[in-house]
């Protein structure tokens, strides 16, 4: 089965190759046209891209595991982001700083992520075939629970001592939490500059380790099972693989890593928007991955990095381009929101069309 697919891939026509890579090509065009208009210097852009590559890679990489298990883009990664944020709120309240604070936040986030991931995975096992829309709604649903915990329980049921965190009314966390204590503590752990741009070396090392872990994971028993489940659930079940359990584990792993990713992301940003930071992180991460040429059923590490570089070049230059072209920076901001959504829509449509075509082809072959 796999061999046959690969053979089909070899015989891909140039037109199909173009369609499959339309999104990255489009983005390269946008960037090539946009960069001169924006008027940004090379070193500024390099600095931006390096910093964005550092803070987003981990988040985007966390999406790869569910794709492997055939569950599509895990819109439920916002759940992990929420867990990471709860960890960060607590360590900030306890006055812990630096790398230990990040490690502790990660440790706190893990059980929360596991619980949320388990919940998400269990629900997704009941909604096979529409994992994406379901995980998307789970993100919204859990956002309500997150608000309940952070806005009503923290400071009343969960003790929060710091008056800088709690709203004046006595319970609930403020809109913004200052993460002064951990700001760039990982990025600047190993200082290094190149062409006037600072390189977050330690963050990159962590990302590299995660990449190696993913590559290793693909070869383990569980990783193989996941790929088998992703190929064909029924075949995998007949081969004696516990399909539900494998799918559940893939979501749990993704959620846990998304939590770590959120902590890395926020140490770079330096402030936590308590009620907003997590809400769109899934959408942006998925858009970045798709820009890198990934599709709903196929994504690898190369897609992650190409995607982040292209997507974030667009993200950085869009407001200035909008201002320089039309005199309205707001326009550029709307444009990048439109492009993010547009990319996801386009990739989803492409995936569904291809899936249908393949099913038709398989049917014809079976009949012949």
């Amino acid at each position: 089965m796999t061999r046959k697919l690969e053979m089909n891939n070899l015989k891909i026509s140039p037109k199909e190759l173009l369609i499959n890579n339309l999104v990255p090509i489009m983005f390269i065009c946008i960037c090539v046209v946009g960069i001169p208009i924006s008027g940004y210097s090379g070193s500024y852009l390099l600095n931006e891209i390096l910093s964005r590559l550092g803070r987003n890679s981990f988040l985007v990489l966390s999406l790869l595991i569910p794709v492997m298990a055939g569950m599509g883009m895990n819109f439920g990664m916002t759940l992990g982001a929420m867990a990471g944020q709860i960890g960060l709120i607590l360590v900030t309240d306890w006055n812990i700083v630096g790398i230990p604070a990040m490690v502790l936040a990660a440790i706190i986030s893990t059980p929360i992520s596991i619980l949320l991931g388990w919940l998400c995975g269990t629900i997704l096992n009941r909604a096979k075939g529409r994992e994406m829309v379901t995980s998307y709604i789970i993100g919204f649903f859990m956002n309500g629970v997150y608000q309940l915990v952070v806005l009503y329980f923290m400071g009343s049921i969960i003790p929060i001592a710091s008056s800088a965190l709690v709203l004046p009314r006595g319970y609930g966390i403020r809109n913004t939490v200052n993460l002064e204590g951990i700001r760039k503590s990982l990025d600047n752990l190993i200082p290094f500059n190149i062409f006037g741009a600072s390189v977050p070396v330690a963050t990159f090392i962590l990302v590299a380790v995660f990449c190696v872990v993913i590559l290793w994971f693909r070869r383990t028993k569980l990783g193989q099972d996941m790929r088998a489940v992703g190929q064909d659930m029924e075949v995998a079940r007949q081969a004696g693989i516990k399909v539900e359990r494998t799918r559940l584990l893939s979501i749990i792993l993704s959620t846990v890593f998304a939590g770590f990713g959120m902590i890395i992301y926020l140490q770079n940003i330096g402030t936590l928007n308590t009620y907003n930071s997590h809400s769109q992180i899934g959408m942006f991460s998925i858009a970045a991955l798709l820009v890198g040429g990934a599709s709903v059923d196929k994504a690898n590490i190369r897609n992650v990095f190409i995607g982040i570089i292209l997507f974030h070049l667009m993200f950085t230059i869009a407001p200035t381009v909008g201002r320089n072209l039309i005199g309205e920076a707001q326009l550029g901001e709307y444009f990048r929101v439109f492009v993010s959504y547009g990319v996801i829509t386009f990739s989803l449509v492409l995936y569904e069309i291809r899936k249908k075509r393949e099913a038709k082809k398989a049917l014809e072959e079976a009949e012949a």
Partner: protein
Amino acid sequence: MDATVLKEKSLHAVKSFGLPRLIITLFLLLLFIIAPFANVNIASGISDMLTRFGMNAVLVLAMVPMVHSGCGLNFGLPLGIISGLLGATLTLEFGYTGFSSLMMAILFATPFAIILGAGYGALLNRVKGGEMMIATYVGFSSVAFMCIMWLLLPYDNPSMVWGYAGTGLRTTISVEGAYLGVLDNFLRIQIGHFAVPTGTILFFAFLALLMWLFLRTKTGTAMTAVGSNPIFATASGVSVDRMRTLSVILSTWLGAVGIIIYEQSFGFIQLYMGPFNMAMPAVSAILLGGASVNKASIANVVIGTLLFQGILTMTPSVMNGLIQMDVSEVIRIIVSNGMILYALTRKQEATR
């Protein structure tokens, strides 16, 4: 023996009614019972509920055609809303007033709804089985695209554009002097705190009746057939794609009319990110009314909108009066998305 029969019967009743719907109905009843203790006026509560019912019912009705033709829940409602917004802004641009402005808004919105709906329908025909996710993102992309357009389109009525620049539409535009309240105040019943926006409800009833009649025409039954059994429908000579496109156009048009009715009551046109989150409440309302991913009736619309809007109006006031803590926003999020999750995970629908 009798006891077990009774138990079975009641279990069956609960099952057919749906456990979440039962819980939410009981919750709403409970809110009405404890309302007097929280110093909340029940009469004004009920009239608020009716007003909001009138505001939202058409938007919920817009779910029905697409569910019938098997396109699933219309998460792409923002597309219809955008057509409505185009109609509404054009009406104001040309300076219509009174009842005629409402009619003109609907009239202007219609061609947009038909064109956008046809395109949207053609797209959904190519992605059968994955409609809902794509619908969601079509809605979102179109909202983001229109954000750019609202800034660029050459509107120049001073009451609508930003004062200092002279271009670009404002975020919220008042419909006062145009169609504000033209339906709400038609045959309005007002007794003290108790008020009924008769005109709006009659208008909804009219549309619902049309929908009910349509579903019983030859085309309507063909549409339902396409949704429930596409293979059978094809065999009996019905074009699946055409029926689906027609249903999407209908849904989109109803979305356009829905937002105009909403503005008529609400008083403002909300542009830019305004339509962004309007699909979710409508989707969860119809599900709350007992609809599922592939089955929806007019009764589902009425019951669902009443329940959903009832919860939305009663929770904040009762909660505030009782515990001085406004958790209504959280309850709204959990109830509406919980309802959608419940529908997505129900076993009998997983087959499709």
